[in-house]
């Protein structure tokens, strides 16, 4: 998470790695769109050309983004490719695996099955929005402490699913954890550790620990 930082497209970049490079070019693309963006429309009138970009406003992790998207663009692709928020992962891209899980108004949601135009007027939280600067959230800490991952690809989605579950049910039983996390698949099979991490985060939160 920390390597995303707030490095803008024009900021100094001493060390270029793959993710930093990809983030930089995608943020540049978003910035280029922002320049030409107009105010959001209520979309009462459909554009004639289906590929014509529609101006939208997205509220992500407390920031407001103005950009123009094609109606067919999904939230996951806009988050990653326009806003440079590459924490959410595209896995199955058909609403089955959960790697793309984000919060919409505090509820978990598959961003691969959500059109970006439909995510307007909602508060979006991605994995990048959980940490407070360099300080990880209680759920993130619990995943580290309990080894709640192996390869890590599904982890951002797992963490967001856990966050969404705990917001709805702060004291889940183990069965409620299993059901609450059932929309997220882990091919490495780290489920036992993931469930422990969710329970640990719940008890940290109960005892008034970090967020």
């Amino acid at each position, binding site marked *: 998470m920390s390597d995303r930082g707030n490095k803008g497209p024009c900021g100094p970049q001493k060390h270029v790695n793959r993710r930093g490079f990809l983030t930089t070019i995608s943020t540049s693309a978003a910035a280029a769109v922002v320049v030409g963006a107009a105010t959001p429309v*209520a*979309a*009462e*009138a*459909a*554009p*004639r*050309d*289906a*590929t014509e970009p*529609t101006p939208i406003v997205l509220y992500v992790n407390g920031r407001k983004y103005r950009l123009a998207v*094609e*109606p*067919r*663009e*999904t939230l996951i*692709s806009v988050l990653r490719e326009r806003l440079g928020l590459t924490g959410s992962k595209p896995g199955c*891209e*058909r*609403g089955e695996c*959960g790697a793309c*899980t984000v919060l*919409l108004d505090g*509820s*978990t*949601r*598959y961003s691969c*099955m*959500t*059109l970006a*135009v*439909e995510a307007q007027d909602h508060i979006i939280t991605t994995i990048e929005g959980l940490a407070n600067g360099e300080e990880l959230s209680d759920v993130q800490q619990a995943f580290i402490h309990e080894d709640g991952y192996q390869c890590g690809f599904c982890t951002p989605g797992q963490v967001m*699913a856990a966050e*969404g*579950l705990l917001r709805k049910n702060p004291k889940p039983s183990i069965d409620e954890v*299993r*059901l*609450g996390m*059932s*929309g997220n698949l882990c091919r490495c099979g780290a489920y036992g550790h993931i469930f422990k991490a969710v329970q640990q985060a719940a008890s940290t939160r109960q005892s008034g620990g970090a967020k």
Partner: protein
Amino acid sequence: MLPTFTYVKPTTLEHAVRELATPGARACSGGTDLLGCLRDRVLKADKLVSLNGLAELRGISELPNGGLRIGALSTLSEIASHTLITTRYHALSAAAGAAASPQLRNQGTIGGNLCQRPRCWYYRGDFPCARKGGDTCFAKEGENQLHAIFGGDVCVMVHPSDTAPALTALDASVRLVGPRGSRTVALDAFFVLPSKDYTRETVVEPDELVADIVLPPPPAAALSTYRKLRSRGAWDFALTGAAVALGMHGKKVERARIVLSGVAPVPWRVELAERELVGHELSEALIERVAQRASEHASPLSANAYKVALVRGAVAEALSELRAKG
């Protein structure tokens, strides 16, 4: 990448209906089924008409007659946890809570759940099956372990909804709105069997949309539940399910509805089994007899005879749960 389409988000029902009437338009609310169908090129859309700006399709509220109105845009999560539903129409909250995954329940609506397209792998895959305008049902001679044991004809799909059998058992009806005004259809008459028309799953016309669902006041001493059997404990479609709604008079069953999921192209009501219940006390022996009755007249395909036993099990378990409650 999804194929291209235009997008419009009306804020009045009238405007939405007008937009839907244009060729190539499709209604979209949660999008959890539609976007998958568009991505897989199972369906085409030139224009998506978002229903999410229609405040009048939201909300769950008690009716003056003691019944319940559920706006079509209510999510499955809302329905699974709404107090009026968990207390009076338990079969519905149980079905909504057992559907899909937490994320999809937060997103998917009850209107969309009723109107979802078949999950048959031939229908979703690259096969020109009968339902897609071809002349063959590939499942009949092919991989059919998840397919119908009742009501199959030209097509042996099973209806994928969990809420539909629950709503059918609860005698719900659906209000449809279109350019010709609104009409109310009982859930019992909402779904279309392949023998009647194998190109559609419901009576909803392309220019109509589901506005709301109306539940009658529950009968006195009402008991209902939904038992879902699947190959894993969560996040899967029903192999077989049983929605059961009873009206009791003392210890005796006065009114009974048993509707199966996962076994037919429509929610499958088993009236023979229902009749067996009426006028009797729920005993273990009766439950066994009713479960047996519910599975009679099944016509399994080459790989799904196991569903006959699942029907007996689902019905027996649902009735036993109600017996313990009653």
